[in-house]
């Protein structure tokens, strides 16, 4: 594991521990219900995880949208926009426990490791469809049903497994819906052994939301075109398949910093952006539009 990845995994692990600090919940099969639970965490972290001390922003958003009497979700949306405007997809790279899980799975040796393939690019759009359809439109239409949480969210499935281990009453209630969610989780687990962060790339509505902010968030990636020699090292190390010299503001960039480390000229910078620099005009490498 590269030094940069080690540091990031350490931050991810520490953050996951902090936001899942209700350790006794794992043994008692119960969830935390203290006052901190009214604050949404920035990453995908199911509030029904026995360790969770905060609320899941995507679950909370659907709760408001699926209420019988519609209430505009000022609080949750405000928090999401705040996290997005400050950090953009830094949240995905550093503050998401489910992202950490996928990264750890990616470290396991597997016969097939394929990160770049033809369908990759069109498949990235699925997450925006999920955000619009399963998080906004369907919960607002089919009242009392958080569609994304109920039928897709793998973080909830992990929470279900963790609760069922120590809570026999809940374990006895698991049925067809759980089986369906387990199939999705298994597909993501197997996918993570082959592709880097498949859930983040293709399915995560939270990643889709934060992607909107990557263009102008406070923490950004910038490329100094006067230093760039177009060697392509940055795009070749990017596991999210972004070319940072062409689209440093790409919505697909999770700000992992691998490209910054790989750049031999020090042309890339990731941090609080004070200066904007344009991309080289003669570059023709394929990349994601931001």
């Amino acid at each position: 594991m590269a030094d940069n990845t080690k540091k990031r995994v350490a931050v991810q692990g520490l953050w996951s521990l902090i936001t899942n600090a209700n350790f006794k919940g794992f043994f008692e099969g119960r969830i935390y219900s203290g006052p901190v639970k009214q604050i949404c965490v920035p990453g995908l972290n199911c509030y029904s995880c026995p360790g969770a001390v905060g609320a899941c922003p995507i679950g909370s958003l659907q709760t408001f949208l699926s209420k019988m009497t519609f209430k505009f979700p000022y609080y949750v949306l405000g928090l999401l926009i705040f996290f997005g405007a400050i950090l953009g997809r830094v949240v995905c790279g550093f503050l998401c426990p489910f992202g950490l899980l996928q990264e750890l799975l990616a470290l396991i040796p597997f016969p097939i490791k394929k990160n770049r393939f033809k369908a990759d690019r069109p498949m990235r759009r699925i997450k925006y469809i999920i955000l619009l359809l399963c998080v906004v439109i369907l919960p607002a239409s089919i009242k009392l049903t958080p569609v994304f949480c109920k039928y897709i969210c793998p973080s909830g499935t992990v929470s279900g497994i963790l609760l069922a281990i120590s809570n026999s009453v809940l374990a006895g209630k698991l049925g067809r819906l759980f089986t369906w969610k387990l199939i999705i989780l298994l597909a993501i687990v197997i996918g993570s052994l082959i592709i880097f962060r498949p859930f983040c790339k293709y399915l995560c509505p939270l990643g889709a939301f934060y992607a909107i902010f990557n263009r102008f968030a406070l923490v950004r990636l910038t490329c100094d075109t006067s230093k760039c020699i177009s060697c392509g090292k940055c795009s070749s190390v990017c596991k999210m398949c972004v070319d940072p010299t062409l689209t440093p503001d790409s919505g697909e960039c999770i700000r992992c910093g691998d490209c910054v480390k790989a750049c031999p000229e020090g042309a890339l910078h990731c941090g609080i952006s004070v200066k904007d620099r344009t991309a080289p005009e003669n570059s023709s490498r394929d990349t994601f539009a931001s």
Partner: protein
Amino acid sequence: MKAPDKKRIILMITLTAAIILIFAGLVEGQASAVFEKAAKICMECIGIG
């Protein structure tokens, strides 16, 4: 107006809007609504329905 200024202005407007939304939500008591949902086991989320 140069591009970096535009981005900074968009960021400032977005952050201001976010803070206003958070306060509006707090005034409306939406933090308690989040708590009500988050403090109980979400049956849909864990796959019971």
